[in-house]
């Protein structure tokens, strides 16, 4: 048996008190396409970042073709022949295909400082040809290439030079996320070409069909550990889903104490934006509705449409039985919607402003004297009170939000949403980047709010969270509503199966 091209073992990484990676191991043989699967937070990206030299592990033994190596920086990883291709297409659209291939490499020169354009284009053509790509003109502007061809350009860029390194391992992180079916086929052809040349490929994906089409081996991670590595030939999609989710749902979620009320708070009969369509559901007072779906399936876009941040193409919605006109966020807050966005730093908080300013922003009209003049005493009282109710740790309502930890920043956004008990509370990834203790606080809080009669919608990539907290789950698939199911008695396995396209 050939010695592995790349092997990593005993890889561990701890962030503060949370263990992101626990004694993980992985081997990639020459000519092997190796799938890496797992739920969000399972430790896949930490493992990849260690290989890329971006994250320093607490411990890890890495060997290339049997030789122990250390990787301290991205430059080390590059020199050792490791190449990383991310799902975001970080190309320079104004430059030509050839220039993009060589953008992080030295351009061929003439007379020491002039770019040798003829050689640049010839080299680009050559590297594309080696990968069996003949339909891309190196002189063409990258902006005019399809996303799939842009991805191929990135791979060609990674391939150049790696062929001369002793090892060459390509790590591809969800490369097909932005690609169409035809483009994916073309990418697979190139991957097979790499395989024929004896390169190794580590292929990270959520797409079951691709794993069975292109990969030879699969490694499944869960909760920071490698659960199992086995040949694709001896596994099935349902095996993989069981391996990915196989955890119990007990403890971590506070139980429902009050029954869901009969009254329908929000009746969405038809809702669509440029991003999502086919949304229709009824939400009762006191109910918690989950929104599930794979990355890019339209979870966040659904919440953005409900708070009025996106223009709606169709809008047939009733609030408390009365027709609701399409609102902008200002009116939505006024009508009793509250929103905690996905990205608290870019979408949620004014980091340079005080806790108090952040909490009262959507409610200023009501708090201010005559709706015009600030009432700081009242703002401070409300902020302090709300801060207490979400167990915010701070030096006071005047503290600058930037100085708070991630979990406490998230609590500021919850405090903002709770100033008035909302009719409809929209939560996008409410516990992302929040440690376990704070998570439980937040779950308890969500329960309390729904207990006060608020209708709650939680979009999350954490299936356990959706099943542990929600009464029903709306499943988004390819930017459409694909299912609306009762969460009681459902397993994460069943829910994940619903999220996958051609799975199961």
């Amino acid at each position, binding site marked *: 048996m050939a010695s592995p091209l790349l092997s990593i073992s005993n890889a561990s990484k701890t962030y503060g008190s949370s263990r992101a990676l626990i004694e993980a191991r992985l081997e990639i043989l020459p000519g092997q396409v190796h799938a890496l699967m797992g739920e969000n937070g399972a430790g896949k990206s930490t493992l990849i970042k260690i290989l890329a030299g971006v994250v320093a592990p607490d411990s890890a033994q890495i060997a290339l073709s049997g030789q122990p190596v250390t990787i301290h920086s991205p430059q080390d990883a590059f020199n050792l022949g490791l190449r990383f291709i991310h799902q975001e297409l970080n190309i320079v659209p104004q430059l030509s295909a050839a220039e993009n291939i060589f953008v992080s490499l030295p351009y061929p020169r003439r007379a020491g400082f002039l770019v040798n354009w003829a050689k640049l284009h010839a080299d680009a053509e050559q590297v594309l040809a080696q990968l069996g790509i003949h339909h891309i003109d190196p002189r063409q502007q990258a902006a005019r290439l399809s996303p799939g061809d842009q991805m191929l350009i990135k791979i060609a860029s990674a391939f150049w030079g790696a062929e001369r390194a002793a090892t060459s391992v390509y790590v591809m992180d969800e490369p097909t996320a932005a690609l169409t079916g035809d483009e994916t086929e073309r990418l697979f052809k190139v991957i097979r070409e790499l395989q024929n040349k004896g390169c190794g490929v580590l292929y990270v994906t959520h797409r079951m069909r691709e794993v069975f089409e292109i990969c030879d081996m699969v490694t499944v991670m869960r909760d920071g550990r490698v659960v199992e590595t086995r040949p694709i030939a001896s596994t099935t999609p349902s095996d993989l889903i069981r391996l990915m989710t196989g955890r119990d749902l007990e403890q971590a979620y506070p139980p429902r104490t009050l029954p869901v009320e009969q009254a329908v708070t929000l009746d969405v009969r038809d809702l669509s934006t440029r991003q999502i369509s086919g949304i229709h559901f009824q939400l009762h007072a006191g109910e918690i509705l989950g929104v599930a779906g794979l990355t890019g399936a339209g979870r966040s876009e659904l919440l953005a449409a409900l*708070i009025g*941040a996106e223009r709606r193409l169709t809008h047939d919605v009733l609030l408390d039985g009365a027709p609701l006109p399409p609102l*902008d*966020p*200002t009116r*939505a*807050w*006024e009508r009793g919607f509250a*929103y905690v*966005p996905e990205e608290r730093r*870019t*979408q*949620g*908080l*004014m*980091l*340079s*402003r005080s806790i108090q*300013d952040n909490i009262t*922003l*959507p409610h*200023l*009209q009501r708090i*201010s004297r005559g*709706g*015009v*003049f*600030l009432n700081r005493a009242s703002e401070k009282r409300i902020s302090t009170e709300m801060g207490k109710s979400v167990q915010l740790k701070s030096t006071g309502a005047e503290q*600058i939000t930037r100085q708070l930890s991630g979990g406490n920043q998230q609590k500021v956004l919850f405090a*903002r949403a709770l100033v008035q008990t909302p009719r409809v509370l929209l939560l996008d990834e409410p516990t992302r980047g929040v440690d376990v203790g704070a998570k439980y606080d937040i779950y308890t809080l969500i329960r309390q709010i729904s207990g006060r009669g608020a209708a709650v919608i939680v979009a999350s990539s954490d299936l356990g969270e959706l099943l542990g907290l929600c009464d029903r789950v709306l499943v988004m698939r390819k930017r459409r509503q694909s299912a609306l199911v009762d969460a009681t008695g459902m397993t994460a396995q069943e829910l994940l199966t619903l999220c996958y396209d051609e799975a199961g």
Partner: protein
Amino acid sequence: MVSTQAQLGRWLRRSGTLIGFIVVIVYFTINIPNTFLTLPNWLNISQQISMLAVVAFTMTIVMVMGDFDLSVGSMASLAGIVAALLFRDSQPVLLGVVAALVVGLIGGLINGVLVSYIGITPFVATLGTLTVFSGVAFLLSGGETIFGRDIPADFSTFARGGIPVGMVNERPLLFPNLTIMALIVFVIVWVVLEQTAFGRRLYAIGGNVEAARLGGVRVRLLRLIAFMLTGMGAALAGLMYASRVASANPTQGAGLMLDAIAAVFLGMTLSEEGEPHVAGTLLGILILGVLDNGLTQMKVDSYVREVLIGAIIIGAVTSSSLNRRGR
């Protein structure tokens, strides 16, 4: 003990601009002993800087959102011309004044629509309107200065008037009307920015425009209104200028814009998070005015003066941004 030292250090860094200002005053007091630190001189300074102050105070409104307005100087010129032309047609003073202010509002409206509804960056949008407003001022006036009998006495005596506060050399010492005007604008802008929900929302936009929008702030409308206020402030400054020199020409506001932005920047060095506040802008204006006044009295060449003032602005802003980066 350590924390007291750290607090003192932080206070010193944050107050560097203020301390610099005091040093400058002490320096001039020593070097110009008989005239600098006197009431008449300071009333004179206050009158000299009043037009610039009005522009800078209202400029602060848009800079709070992270925007700025390059067209204020030519708007000031245009407003002066519009008023003077109406005066030449023997229209009442009040009509001329109101018309000039309306022109300011309309100019600001154009800037606001370009920036906030069409989505052009403030730099490009207001650079464009700077040229347009200036061109319109030339067109309306035929490129000439309007002065003399065309400017009614009711209008031009305003700038020379004031409230008597004492006697110097048997002549009444006046607290200038222009200074009072600037102080009124200061108070209005301070109330708007620091004491109203409107002002708080502008600061929210400056802090994080997307978060402000999702948090229920009507970003586009507020930006539009802010630009209109800045435009009206520029027009008011243009009127004050025209009254002071009892004439109007299409270039007289030209120097206002850069100094106004500089004053806001100087003021921003005083705030912990680097946000503009109108009180800081006031200090910035005073620094510029005092330097100008003191250096003139010391007979320092005006070119040297410009180099010095430029260097001071760069120095103050550099030190405060280094501090912020170091945190």
